[in-house]
């Protein structure tokens, strides 16, 4: 093969100072701890659809919805952002071969911990059973909003850390292309920075003062719109770190290469531009928003599907190159030659496969005709357990199989258990999603304590059972993961752990002339993203007459 280009400044390796590694390690521990904490409630929620209530087994848990709040907050907010707060700065430092800013690293961890303490206080005490979407006028305790706001602040501090590293690197390497791994890591959180502003406004300007009595009333459609202004892009904030692994690390792990530098950068630019101006597709069923605005967001949602299609090609090509180099022949023979014994790879391959289904169901959600049939039915959690619940979660689990050894210096406790975890989780997920998706098509409502609902439908019986069975198997998969990671940390052999991040190389180098260097002008692309956001949200925000009508309700 022709000459390959590294996606990092120094392909030989770079070691982050031990003290900084320790902070990153504790940050990811918080994430994996949140994953574990959240799935207990996930199990209870899934079993409820099969008509079984196990709430009595949870000491201190008062209601189903308290558990559902814990499940959502722990698994999609704390788990994902804790992981990314560690993973993306680590990738940036590795790419640019320079240390991070220790003060910012510590403050990001401190904000995350403080936020967690406040949120745990609120949720455990049944002071915030409003579900992670926090729709006003259901009102939570102020500690809940402040705690989540601090979690968002921790992500901003992580981004600041990466930007400082990037600025330092640029000063020392004027005129050079940003190493690809650094570029995609920084751009992922740059997108999230723009996306997170509406939810910060929602929480800090409206909900927090409202809970503290400084505002008597809020406008529920406005706060809900601010939530979804952030709320679609947030799924890309969860997904892009997984894509970083798929593009930049997985090719190396399977013995392949990343096919194109520019192609990869364009994909991230498209996500930066298109992730945010799509939020109204979560509000197709809402009053107070015109069909024209909904249609514009619908079209843009189709647009943001495109970089994921591009990803499917790039990642598959990298896998095929790896499989063929390992001796795979014929149209599909390369698949068998992939490293199916490597749990880090297997978890992520399974993540990719389930994501095909997640993406397809997402396109159906974006289609407003079908959306009217499935909106707020179990179809929707069926869909997003195949995106954030597997593409993201399984990838973060797969990454853990090299990341935890890398950060602790202890080798993975058991390859076989780790493999069993990934397969178990995936099989459970497919059964679970089959249940939720088919139930949703029959109108089975999401976010509902079905085990004690006063209504039911014969058509929901089988879907409910599949949901319960699949959810239980998924739970077993995460418990195996917990076992492997826990034992790795306390009992892993203190040798044989990976010494470096598995960074790939690209087939086509970043061009030094022509239009490609313009891809590195992140400030300009950020400005373009803001312009597009203003076009997509401006007309509604300007035309909407904000009427605060709702005092807080604590109906839980």
């Amino acid at each position, binding site marked *: 093969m022709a000459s390959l280009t590294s996606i990092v400044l120094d392909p030989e390796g770079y070691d982050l100072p031990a003290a900084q590694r320790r902070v990153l390690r504790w940050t990811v521990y918080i994430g994996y701890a949140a994953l574990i904490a959240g799935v207990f409630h996930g199990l209870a929620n899934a079993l409820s659809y099969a008509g079984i209530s196990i709430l009595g087994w949870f000491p201190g848990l008062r209601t189903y919805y308290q558990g559902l709040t814990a499940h959502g907050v722990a698994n999609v907010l704390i788990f994902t952002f804790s992981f990314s707060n560690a993973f993306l700065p680590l990738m940036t430092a590795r790419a640019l071969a320079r240390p991070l800013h220790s003060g910012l690293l510590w403050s990001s961890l401190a904000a995350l911990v403080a936020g967690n303490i406040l949120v745990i206080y609120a949720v455990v005490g049944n002071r915030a059973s409003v579900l992670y979407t926090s729709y006003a006028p259901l009102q939570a305790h102020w500690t809940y909003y402040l705690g989540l706001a601090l979690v968002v602040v921790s992500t901003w501090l992580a981004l600041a850390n990466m930007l400082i590293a990037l600025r330092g690197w640029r000063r020392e390497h004027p005129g050079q292309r940003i190493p690809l791994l650094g570029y995609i890591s920084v751009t992922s959180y740059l997108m999230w920075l723009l996306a997170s502003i509406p939810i910060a406004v929602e929480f800090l300007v409206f909900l927090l003062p409202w809970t503290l009595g400084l505002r008597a009333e809020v406008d*529920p459609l406005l706060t809900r719109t601010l939530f979804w202004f952030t709320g679609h892009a947030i799924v890309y904030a969860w997904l892009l770190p997984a894509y970083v692994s798929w593009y930049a690390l997985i090719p190396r792990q399977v013995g392949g290469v990343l096919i194109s530098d520019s192609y990869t950068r364009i994909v991230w630019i498209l996500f930066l531009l298109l992730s945010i101006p799509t939020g109204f597709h979560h509000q197709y069923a809402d009053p107070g928003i*015109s069909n024209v605005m909904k249609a514009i967001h619908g079209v843009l949602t189709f647009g943001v599907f495109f970089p994921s299609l591009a990803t499917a090609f790039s990642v598959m*090509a990298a896998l095929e190159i790896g499989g063929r180099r390992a001796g795979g022949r014929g149209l599909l023979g390369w698949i068998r030659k992939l490293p199916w014994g490597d749990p880090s790879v297997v978890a992520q391959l399974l993540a990719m496969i389930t994501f095909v289904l997640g993406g397809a169901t997402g396109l159906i959600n974006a*289609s407003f005709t079908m959306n009217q049939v499935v909106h707020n039915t179990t179809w929707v959690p069926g869909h997003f357990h195949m995106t954030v619940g597997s593409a993201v979660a399984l990838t973060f689990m797969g990454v853990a199989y090299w990341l935890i050894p890398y950060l602790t210096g202890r080798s993975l406790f058991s390859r076989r258990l780790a493999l069993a975890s990934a397969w178990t989780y995936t099989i459970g997920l497919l059964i679970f999603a089959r249940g939720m998706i088919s139930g949703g098509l029959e109108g089975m409502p999401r976010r509902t304590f079905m085990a004690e609902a006063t209504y039911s439908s014969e058509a929901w019986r089988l879907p409910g059972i599949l949901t319960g069975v699949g959810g239980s198997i998924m739970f077993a998969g995460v418990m195996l993961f917990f076992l492997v990671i826990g034992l790795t940390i306390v009992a892993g052999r203190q040798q044989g752990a990976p010494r470096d991040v598995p960074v790939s190389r690209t087939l086509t180098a970043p061009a030094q002339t022509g239009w490609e260097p313009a891809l590195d002008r992140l400030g300009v692309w950020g400005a373009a993203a803001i312009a597009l956001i203003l076009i997509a949200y401006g007309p509604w925000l300007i035309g909407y007459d904000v009427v605060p009508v709702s005092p807080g*309700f604590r109906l*839980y």
Partner: protein
Amino acid sequence: MKIHVYEKAFLTVGIFVLAACALALVYATVVHGLHLPGEAGRIDPAEVATTPPFDRPGVYQRGEGQYEVVVVGRAWSFHPADIRVPAGAEITFTATSADVIHGFHIEGTRLNLMLIPGQISRNTYRFSEPGEHLLLCHEYCGLGHHVMYGRVLVEEPGTDIPLVQTASASDGGAAHLATH
């Protein structure tokens, strides 16, 4: 290099597939008249019980083969909870919430609305066949969310539907249940 040919082909096909899906949406909207709920007016949720038409929720005949169903959602019930409409008629559902956000989904149909305090929700539907459907609150609205539902009974076309009115729904189910 061959890979770039494949790359271009894949992305081109991808664009065409997405465009075809988008065109199908245009077709459904223009030819079949499938519309989303949109802007249908504002209301003060504290005044729902005294603001027409929500002061008298119920089923109203608005013309030949045209009905309007006025529904108020509050924690944790729909008013009215039992709705009778004829098959084949054009039925406009007009609904709002008197407290928190509720859902309004008639199972087995595309009638799917969010009831948001301060907003009036509206969409039109034609039931093609007689039958019974659940009316579900599918947005979490507090402790009693899973007891909040109603029924829609679709009668044979031409059935005489009596005017069904419920008194203004001012007593909250929530207040009752919350004491438990």
